[in-house]
């Protein structure tokens, strides 16, 4: 595309090559709420390929016309639909009914795709999207292989939604099975956090602003806090959540991505492999947790009944579809260390919980205090350390805490906040993460997707914790009341280090 001389001076929004997007799990929530609305918005903006088709695959019998009508309703429930645009867009939507295990269903799918290639000009390019339950990932991949749908004249890629395994062994096994069908370069493991503008902005902020990079190391940074707080409880997902818990749902994937982007070295180039190489190096350099470390540096807990937003809410064990004896954590705090020259001695604190008093995701870089002697010569003056906070949600933006003199005859120092918010400056909402990620997957840009070795390195770390927890199975977890800041043990973890969690 860079050879196109007409592109000079125009925005380089990539329009992918013609292709068919095949969504497995087309009747599911993800397809209705995220995928089809994202595709419609991309088409309306002229960013979809010139020739494209979407084939929804699911078990439930329905016609293409019924599927189109359902998808229209799904888009309408989120946004206004322009009739002329929709009428053209829906001509590209097709439905194929099949059990995921039915070999003949894949043969029929193959025939349909070949027909679309002829009629819609999609050139044999396929993007398969697994919007199914995780236990179907391997099944669908194997069937695609058996039907010969993983090869052909064009390109074939597979998009996989998290979770990528439930532990190291299952992640390795899943990777192994997927790689038998698709080359690693054609596997797109999706983490929608990476589609968020602020997450993408971490690299720009770090490497485009020359003033920060020289400070981004153990000489100047005291510690880093990464927080993902949620107000919500189970919201009907109790059965699913009990299987995964806070670690698998959030910490092992989304939060480790935030950590990698915060701690990585500058990539040699802004190409997908160079960036992902640097992220993997961070994960490899995280010091493995010993059994003692797990006891002292990892805190897990469950929320109990409490009051939140003026309402009484049940505890985790009273939630529908959750076992009253469940040992699943809804809160996890931990301290990690990265053993490399940049981060030697700088702890990274991660904290995530449900039913906390305030919703928010942020990365806080806590700088070391400057020399105090200048201001403490005659009487003690507190000089708060600087802090840089990258807010992922809500109010995406960046805040910097600096010290200023309080006006008056005496020397009093006060911390004030310089606050940049995307919403205030750019005045419009960021595009939906799925729009960006779908566009990238169709265009063959894996930068914002997770590579197989990233998932395995991350699991390597968390597997030790899971094994340690396994030995404590049956013991009740510490509780924190819904609407409170989390368990006391999390505060104690910080206090032992002479630090405190930020109030977000």
């Amino acid at each position, binding site marked *: 595309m860079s050879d196109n001389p007409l592109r000079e001076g125009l925005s380089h929004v990539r*329009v992918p090559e013609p292709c068919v997007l095949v969504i497995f799990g087309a009747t599911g929530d993800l397809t209705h709420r995220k995928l089809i609305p994202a595709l419609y918005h991309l088409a309306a903006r*002229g960013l979809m390929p*010139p020739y494209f088709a979407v084939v929804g695959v699911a078990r439930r019998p329905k016609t293409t016309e019924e599927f189109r009508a359902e998808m229209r309703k799904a888009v309408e429930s989120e946004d206004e639909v322009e009739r*002329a*645009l929709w009428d053209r867009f829906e001509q590209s939507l097709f439905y194929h009914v099949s059990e995921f295990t039915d070999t003949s269903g894949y043969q029929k799918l193959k025939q349909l795709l070949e027909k679309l290639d002829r009629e819609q*000009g999609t050139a044999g390019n396929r993007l398969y999207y697994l919007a199914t339950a995780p236990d179907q990932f391997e099944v669908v991949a194997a069937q695609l292989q058996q039907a010969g749908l993983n090869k052909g004249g064009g390109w074939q890629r597979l998009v996989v939604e998290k979770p990528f395994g439930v532990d190291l062994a299952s992640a390795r096994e899943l990777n192994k099975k997927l790689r038998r069908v698709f080359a690693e370069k054609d596997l797109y493991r999706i983490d929608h956090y990476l589609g968020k503008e602020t997450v993408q902005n971490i690299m720009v902020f770090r490497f485009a602003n020359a003033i920060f990079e020289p400070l981004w190391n153990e000489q100047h940074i005291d510690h880093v806090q990464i927080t993902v707080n949620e107000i919500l409880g189970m919201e009907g997902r109790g059965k699913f959540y009990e299987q995964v818990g806070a670690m698998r749902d959030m910490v092992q994937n989304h939060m480790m991505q935030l950590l990698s982007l915060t701690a990585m070295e500058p990539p040699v180039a802004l190409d997908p492999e160079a960036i992902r190489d640097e992220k993997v190096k961070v994960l490899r350099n995280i010091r493995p947790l010993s059994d003692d470390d797990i006891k002292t540096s990892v805190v897990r807990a469950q929320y109990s009944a409490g009051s939140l937003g003026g309402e009484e809410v049940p505890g985790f064990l009273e939630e529908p579809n959750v076992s009253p004896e469940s040992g699943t954590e809804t809160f996890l705090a931990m301290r990690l260390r990265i053993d490399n020259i940049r981060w030697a001695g700088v702890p990274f604190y991660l904290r995530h919980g449900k039913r906390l008093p305030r919703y928010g995701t942020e990365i806080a870089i806590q700088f070391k205090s400057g020399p105090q002697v200048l201001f403490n010569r005659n009487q003690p003056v507190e000089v708060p350390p600087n802090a840089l906070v990258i807010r992922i949600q809500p109010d995406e933006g960046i805040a910097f805490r600096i010290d200023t003199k309080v006006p008056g005859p005496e020397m009093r120092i006060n911390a004030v906040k310089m606050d940049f*918010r995307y919403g*205030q400056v*750019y005045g419009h909402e960021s595009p939906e993460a799925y729009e960006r990620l779908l566009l990238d997957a169709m265009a063959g840009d894996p930068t914002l997707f997770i590579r197989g070795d990233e998932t395995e390195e991350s699991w390597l770390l968390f597997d030790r914790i899971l094994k340690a927890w396994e030995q404590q199975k049956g013991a009740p977890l510490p509780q924190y009341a819904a609407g409170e800041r989390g368990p006391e043990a999390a505060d104690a973890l910080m206090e032992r280090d002479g630090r405190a969690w930020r109030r977000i």
Partner: protein
Amino acid sequence: MAALTDTLVLDHGAAGNLRRIEELLMLLWTPAGEGDSTSVRACMGNLIVYLEREDDRNDIEYIIHEVVRARPSRVILMFAYPDLPDEPVQVSVSAHCWLEEHGGERVCSEQIRIRATGRRIQDLPGIVVPLLVSDVPVHLWWRDRFLEHQDIFEKFIDSIDHVIYEGLHWKKLPEKVARIEELMKRLQGRVAVTNFNWSRLLPWQQRIAQFFDHGLYDRELDNLCRVSIEYHTPPQQTEGRFFQALLLSGWLASQLGWKLRGGSREGNRVHYQLHAKDGRDIRISIGHKEMPSPGTKGIQKLRFEFEHRGASFAFGIDRDQENQMLFLQVNKEGACGLAQKVRHVSASFATLVLRGMENYQSSSMVFERAFANAAAMLTAVS
């Protein structure tokens, strides 16, 4: 926060006048009293606007509000009335405010209005330049007849990064184009120049460029042999709309390395012969239809024809009748007819200003080259 300050009459000497304007700005950010909610001041740049028409006041307020919501800026409106008797210059200060999405904080951008009459319009640069916010870009939007008061404009040159002007209502096109071309040469590398006629072409340029992005048609650029452009124009914009079509042609020629060989007129059409680097002959044909205003205006239809070893095909972009969509189609034997519909809302003035503010750095070089080619094409048929 005060919505609008009292009007200030500038009769206190240079330093006193500026100090008083700064005080008005400070007053704007002082809470009126208990219960007056605080606001966030946002500023990504400066936008200076030069206006001469009294009836423009309401329109401009609306446009500026839309602009600063998307790109918060300190706005300085210069109302210049050269035909009125000399009066002291008047200044007032106000703010455009809005609530952040999802009920966030109130965000405001400052606006300074300056009214000057008669010879006092010469004082405008001396008042405006000290009020610019430093370290952020300075855009000057010359809302009215550009280069009519060139002496005033020249005084801004050292203080601005970008000037935007309208080109739709131009008369005496060859003379106007020659003056702008001279100015652009002089400002090259110092001040970016763009115009609305150029900004209106952006969606068309995007669609054309996209067509050649992907693997199917990226090689067809070498087989492009004919381009046809159709546009509609109201009677009072005939020359401006023609120049817009020339800008599009000039852009294709400069980006694709075509050299102009000659031009001719034939009724409502003009034809150009160009020569590609590989020796290929290319023909650009521009036709128009006069439409009563209001009606559909501007580019309506583009057609690109390709030939290679005796085989030919065409790619077309048409505006739909409702004027809200673009319809893209390929006519190629043995290939699937590409038929995409994409949103195409006629750009408001606010959109055009924003496009200029957002893209001036990247697009000004391309614009300058396109303009030079368009000027040559104009000369070829004048």
